[in-house]
């Protein structure tokens, strides 16, 4: 460790200060949003109240009245929770099959699954609208949003689970088989307890992706199943009149997810790079 830790003041003082400065600059827009959310709409655009002002909770109190926040938040919660659950329900057996009973085609199947993630969503926008509106009648329903969110996250979830499952020694699963445990028992009693951490962080990441999704949730909903993405997108240009209240509703929309993200930053890398960087 000795040579790797130079003890010049450049390394002890200047570099940490620089790191702190950069971190603060990156966090500043979020800080600014939260700060603005405690200003009244009038104060938010006055230069004399940039940092010193009379803080108020009124923007948060009036969120329901101004934006119907909870209706959208409820839709975001329902769709993200059920989509995550459904994705795991389909993804766990699939990743189990590929990790412990691979065939010649497993790699190709995994690659193909990932390639579905790379289709530009816009290319199938009209067929999706057409199918769901005219044909299936599920446009603007929770059901549709849940299914679409599940499908777009399924490849990432299977890949993540696959990389976690592969770290479990095959012998443990084989031993279970010798003892006469059936496939369902293998998954439920042997695999899941062992891979609990991996499954949990996969679920968390899937939930974050569902919550932040901003293409299909905006294009395939109008009112009934509209999520927070749609709410914010609908208030894109407040012309400076409502910076305070808009900041409050934005902060409320991203707050829970940013905090969740802090807890899973280590596992995030694997999920974001499809297991290529661990």
């Amino acid at each position, binding site marked *: 460790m000795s040579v790797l830790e130079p003890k010049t003041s450049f390394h002890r003082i200047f570099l940490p200060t620089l*790191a702190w400065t950069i971190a603060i600059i990156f*966090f500043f*827009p979020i800080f600014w949003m939260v700060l603005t959310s405690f200003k009244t709409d009038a104060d938010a655009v006055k230069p004399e109240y940039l940092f010193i002002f009379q803080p108020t909770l009124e923007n948060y109190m009036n969120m329901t009245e101004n934006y119907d926040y909870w209706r959208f938040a409820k839709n975001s919660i329902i769709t993200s929770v059920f989509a995550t659950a459904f994705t795991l329900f389909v993804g766990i057996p699939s990743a189990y099959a590929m990790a412990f009973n691979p065939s010649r085609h497993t790699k190709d199947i995994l690659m193909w699954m990932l390639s579905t993630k790379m289709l*530009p969503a*816009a290319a199938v926008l009209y067929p999706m609208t057409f199918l769901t509106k005219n044909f299936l009648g599920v446009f603007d329903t929770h059901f549709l949003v849940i299914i679409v969110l599940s499908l777009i996250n399924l490849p990432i979830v299977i890949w993540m689970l696959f990389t976690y499952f592969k770290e479990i020694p095959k012998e443990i699963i084989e031993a279970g088989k010798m003892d006469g445990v059936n496939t369902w028992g293998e998954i439920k009693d042997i695999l899941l307890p062992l891979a609990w951490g991996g499954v949990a962080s996969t679920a968390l990441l899937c939930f974050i992706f569902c919550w932040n999704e901003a293409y299909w949730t905006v294009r395939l909903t109008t009112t009934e199943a509209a999520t927070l993405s749609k709410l914010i997108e609908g208030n894109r240009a407040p012309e400076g009149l409502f910076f305070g209240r808009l900041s409050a509703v934005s902060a409320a929309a991203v707050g829970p997810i940013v905090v969740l993200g802090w807890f899973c930053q280590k596992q*995030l890398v694997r999920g974001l790079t499809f297991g290529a960087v661990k």
Partner: protein
Amino acid sequence: MGNRTLPRLLQTPAVLLLLAWMLVPLSMTLFFSFIRYVLNNLRKPEWTTPSIDNWRGWGNYEYVLYKAKDFWFAVENSLIIVGSIIVFTVVLGLAIAVLINRTFPGRGIVRVLLISPFFIMPAVNAVLWINMILDPVLGLNGLAIGGINNMVASLANAPLVGWFFALWPVIEPISFRGTETSAIAVIIMVTWQWTPFAVLIFMTSMQSEDQQQKEAAILDGASTWSQFCNLTLPHLARPIAIVVMIQAIFHLSLYAEIEIVSRGNGNKNLPYLIGEFASNNIGAASATGILAVILANIVAIFLLRIVGKNLMD
């Protein structure tokens, strides 16, 4: 083989779901791209429903590629936006990762602060930047420039140095709502959001760097810069490639930011152009969609090759 059949069957639901998700809408897009299909057409009502009788062959593609004035602009703009974001995030990401890949007081908090922008939902990112921060009058941009102008104006009345400040011009804040400037705004906000992603991945990879090799290099008197170029950078080649390609794929389908920042001001990328076509000319929207798929696939092939390299071992 027998006792492996059931476990293997467990992957079929996922495969079938994804197959349907990919094939059904995509083959519809492919079909629509070869027919005349226009939602509002009073003179030719038969074109308003999809039918094989309205076969147009390559006509939609010819229209999009040669006649529609926005296609090449959208392609160029997509590539400029994606390219700039990638260059900025990789350079910034490398610099920041090197900087915080050491122990110093409060490193954990620095990490938390740095990673936060990545979790902001795209709609909030765009609304926050374009209004509260970049707005030329009421945003931080306008307020700060106004503050500087006021300060200069009051200093101009000061004794002794007043003449110097009187020479200063009044600064005009940049508006980020024009065609080109709003593309810059999009680049700024997405770079802000995705630099943490690059930092996180580079930092994770740097932790697996060979420390002994590094110690040897230091003992041999290698400078920090040559250590970085000859040891760290080659070690990071694969993560860099992954960061570049994942971002290429994500940002080629950038939508919410463009929609919020640039609606109606002429700045558009491919997904936005498809959205515009899709309000009426479905044939052209579908042809553009197929071209976008081809563009994305060129990138995807390289990414899949890299990701798949060490997959099965």
